[in-house]
């Protein structure tokens, strides 16, 4: 390391503890997970993957996970995009209030929020009671343990992760940009698509990557809000380890889950960097 400057060496030294912890707590277990997923009764084996991709049931499970992540991502995006502008344009107390209402729920555990939804949505819950009291329905409708409940819960839990990155970009956006577009002949629609959307795209992409990877690997929300009817990759992993004691199969499902999340993050970060896309 003779060629390194003093500052460089100091920087490496300062980073060493973090690097060691990362290696011990993440890289080693990941390597183990990877190794175990390729292990059968007699050493190396693809049997766990064969079982995962060879059965219609588990393809359906993977599909469930992807579908949940995709729908949740879309719904949060549709809510978060205008909401980010509302928060960014709000002034003083209003802005603090809106941001606070967004950040405060993050302090509550996912389990608390998921249970809260089961209480709200059950047949004697406040939602059903209110609808009955208003005369909109005559008897309780089934809400808990449905796909709708699942999406509502997931959107509620993961919405801040979509709003925050978009808000961060919108808050920094020079308001003169849309004015400049207007003076150059862009009507409101053209200014939105040609300036506002491309300028805020990095925030949108970051939000998509966050919410998709969080939802695809979510365990608590699907388990509490829909349960056995809608098995996902995370619940499959949990079952393999906790109930059936199939370590290799659980590891393979874990690797698949990790690959999906990683692919989304990598693709989106590439998209976020692509310059001049709308030239």
């Amino acid at each position: 390391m003779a060629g390194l400057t003093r500052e460089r060496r100091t920087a490496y030294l300062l980073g060493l503890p973090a690097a060691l912890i990362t290696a011990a707590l993440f890289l080693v277990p990941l390597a183990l997970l990877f190794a175990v997923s390729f292990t059968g009764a007699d050493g190396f084996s693809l049997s766990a993957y064969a079982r995962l991709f060879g059965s219609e049931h588990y393809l359906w499970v993977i599909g469930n996970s992807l579908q949940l992540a995709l729908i949740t991502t879309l719904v949060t995006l549709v809510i978060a995009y205008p909401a980010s502008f509302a928060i960014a344009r709000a002034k003083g107390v209003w802005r603090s209030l809106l941001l606070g209402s967004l950040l405060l729920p993050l302090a509550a555990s996912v389990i608390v929020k998921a249970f809260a939804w089961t209480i709200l949505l059950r047949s004697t819950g406040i939602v059903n009671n209110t609808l009955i009291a208003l005369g909109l329905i005559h008897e309780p409708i089934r809400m808990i343990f449905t796909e709708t409940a699942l999406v509502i819960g997931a959107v509620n839990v993961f919405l801040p992760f979509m709003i925050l990155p978009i808000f961060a970009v919108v808050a920094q956006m020079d308001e003169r940009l849309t004015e400049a577009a207007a003076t150059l002949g862009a009507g409101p629609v053209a200014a939105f698509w040609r300036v506002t959307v491309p300028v805020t795209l990095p925030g949108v992409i970051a939000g998509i990557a966050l919410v998709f990877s969080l939802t695809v690997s979510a365990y608590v929300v699907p388990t509490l809000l829909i349960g056995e009817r809608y098995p996902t990759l995370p619940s499959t992993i949990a079952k393999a380890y906790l109930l059936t004691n199939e370590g290799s199969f659980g590891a393979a499902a874990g690797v698949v889950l990790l690959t999906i999340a990683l692919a989304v993050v990598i693709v989106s970060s590439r998209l976020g960097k692509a310059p001049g896309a709308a030239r």
Partner: protein
Amino acid sequence: MADAAHLGVKGVSKRYGAATVLESIDLDMARGELVTLLGPSGCGKTTLLRVIAGLVRADTGTLSLAGRDVTRMPPYRRNVGVVFQSYALFPHLDVAGNVAFGLNLKRLPKAEIEAKVRRVLALVHLEALAERPIRALSGGQQQRVALARALAVEPSVVLFDEALSALDRKLREAMQVELRQLLTSIGATAVFVTHDQEEALTMSDRIAVMHRGRIDQLADPRTLYDRPATSFALSFVGQSFRLSGRVVASEPGLSVIDTAAGQLRAPKQFLTGSDVIVATRPEHAHLGHATLGPGDNSLAGTVSNVTFQGPRSLVEVRIGDAFLTVQMPGRSAAPPIGSEVTVGWPIAETLIFPAEGEP
């Protein structure tokens, strides 16, 4: 409509709540004219520019541009170019993409857009940087891109909102001269907004001095400097020496004013008894009894400072509570600090205004 103004602002007013930002502004500009709105922050100059651009709607009044009534027209139909103080360049596009933005919206053929972009970039000496991303440009280069983007759509009027203020002094001064030449060569009509009087004097055919939402004076730079219409215009443009006083005698073309420092004459009749401000430009003042003529005002003062600058010396004279800096040729002996001197200047170069506080 041959004799109508290219840009016509008539009776434009704007209020925000209780605050009147613009009060019945009238401004007519000829085609190819360069006009500066000059004033301190809060005088309404930027609001007026935004009204012309269509980014702010006036409460009353009308606007016409290139023969069209644009009073109720949104900015995207007005055909105005704006160079913003922050430049407001599109960060997701490169230099050529920014310049082509307005042309793309007009759905011109691709080859024509490219040719126009190249021509405009050549105009601002940025041909070599067409492919650069915006963040890779210096402040001066960004300023040129913003200008090129505004000029590319061939606007009826180009509006500059403190567009040079972010540049450092040297670059700004070079850019003032270059920009004026460029705009004149392409025959552009332009409105500048600035609080920098030197920029206004350099850039403009006419200057509108704005004060509290009104145009105090609209005149060419020389008239504005020599014959300011209000004491505000006097103090905002150039150096001045001012004393307040009261008119004690007057006749057509002459007022005699008593000030704390002595009696002065001014070549304009004011009502006897009115409170006034009497002023002159420092360059009209000279030192010593010997140079005084019959048509001169004179006051006694004390030399408070002398600065030798080579070709000239600056002699600061304290007269009452006011200071007047007189220039002397560097070779002649300046009076010592603390000495009693007489300062004189021609009555013809004496300015008189009603005392401030009046409308």
